């Protein structure tokens, strides 16, 4: 019964979904305020989701029907599973095992793969283009993002999220000891979530709605939900690893929120990069910076 509550109500399941919607609202509202607008009302993401769920789902001609219906479910399931190993809301994660950091990062990547495949299985050329861009972007940010998350893992000498957060909680914030890794992790998270300036995969002015062009109703609602959940999980992960672990839930919530504000501000500041610029940025700077940081940590570890 207790395990069921953990899965369905708190901290996974319902609470996570609600917080994910709240995170979307905070992000949209802040973006609107930065653009001198009033912005959406607080229940806007909920209304959007319910409306999409109540809408007709068109299954276009020429798609693989089973995959078309299964991919949104799989992506939501993947991010909800990823949430089990991270310290959501600062509470102890539901599961913890050796190597769960890697599993979490790759479960988050499953969302990206599903998004890409959702574009590639349709006949629509915009969706196909979007799907290809999603994949190109995945191959560019994934390596630096993982390297940036490995920094704390190497410092804590463990692949287990709870051990890393315990190490992060008892030492100086890794934001200060590994600033480069923090920057790469935050920007990598933005790339993962396809937020501006890395939103070339769904550039509305070029390729309609990217890989989700053919999705309507339920599928779109599930994809949007999974992206919001991935946002919360990613923020939790980066905040727990880099901003001094999970001491008390309130301080952790403030840290996560601060990280969300940083991401939204960066979103408002920069215009969209072309897909080749995105890839160039990651492989020219992101990987090198993350690798350099990693070597420094290894040398520091060896010297100590």
């Amino acid at each position: 019964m207790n395990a069921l509550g953990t899965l369905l109500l708190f901290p996974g399941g319902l609470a996570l979904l609600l917080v994910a919607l709240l995170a979307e609202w905070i992000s949209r509202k802040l973006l609107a305020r930065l653009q001198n607008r009033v912005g959406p009302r607080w229940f806007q993401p909920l209304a959007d989701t319910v409306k999409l769920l109540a809408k007709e789902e068109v299954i276009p001609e020429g798609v693989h029907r089973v995959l078309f219906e299964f991919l949104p479910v799989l992506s939501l399931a993947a991010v909800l599973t990823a949430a089990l190993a991270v310290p959501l809301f600062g509470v102890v994660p539901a599961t913890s095992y050796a190597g769960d950091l890697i599993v979490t990062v790759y479960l988050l990547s499953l969302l990206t793969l599903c998004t890409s495949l959702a574009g590639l299985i349709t006949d629509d050329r915009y969706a196909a283009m979007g799907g290809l861009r999603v994949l190109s972007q995945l191959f560019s940010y994934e390596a630096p993002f993982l390297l940036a998350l490995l920094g704390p893992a190497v410092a804590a000498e463990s692949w287990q999220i709870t051990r890393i957060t315990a190490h992060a909680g008892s030492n100086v914030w890794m934001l200060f000891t590994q600033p480069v890794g923090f920057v790469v992790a935050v920007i990598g998270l933005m790339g993962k979530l396809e937020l501006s300036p890395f939103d070339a995969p769904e550039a509305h002015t070029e390729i309609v709605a990217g890989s989700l062009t053919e999705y309507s109703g339920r599928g779109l609602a599930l994809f949007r939900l999974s992206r919001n959940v991935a946002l919360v999980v990613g923020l939790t992960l980066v905040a727990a690893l880099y901003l001094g672990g999970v001491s008390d839930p309130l301080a952790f919530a403030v840290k996560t929120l601060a990280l969300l504000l940083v991401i939204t501000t960066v979103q408002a500041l920069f215009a969209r990069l072309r897909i080749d610029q995105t890839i160039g940025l990651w492989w020219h700077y992101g990987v090198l910076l993350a690798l350099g940081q990693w070597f420094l940590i290894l040398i520091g570890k060896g010297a100590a």
Partner: protein
Amino acid sequence: MTAMKIEQAWNNALAGVALWARTNSPWVLHFNTGSCNGCDIELLAALTPRYDAERLGVKLQASPRQADILICTGPVTRQARDRLLRIYEQMPEPRFVIALGSCALSCGVFHDCYNVVGPLDRFIPVDVYVPGCPPRPEAIIYGVIELLKKLHPVDVILEGGSA
């Protein structure tokens, strides 16, 4: 007997929730059927910071599959007719149409042009007409709100939610 009543109440509740969501999250798709761009500029102005339609939940979508309201500007030209019908067919139910500007209503100054095949409502059902050449952004937002009011049995939309 009671089981039926409970089922009916449940269905009513579901319909109420769906209606609430629908009236609070109108995503629009903009299609230019042959307009001179005057209405299009006004429509974009309605989405810019000064008027900010997002406070009513209005979002401009790029894909017909993801839109609820099709906003058409201009008279329907021979070239645009097939595309218009196709875009309308691509939208999922429930879908609504707003005709924007004098030309979409009656072809306006393009009346009897060789390449104009008629006003918008000759080809697809129109829910709300917004007159003007071009209509001001306030008029466009008013048109959207009139459309949302039509969905509701009673005039209570946007209540408690006005930003």
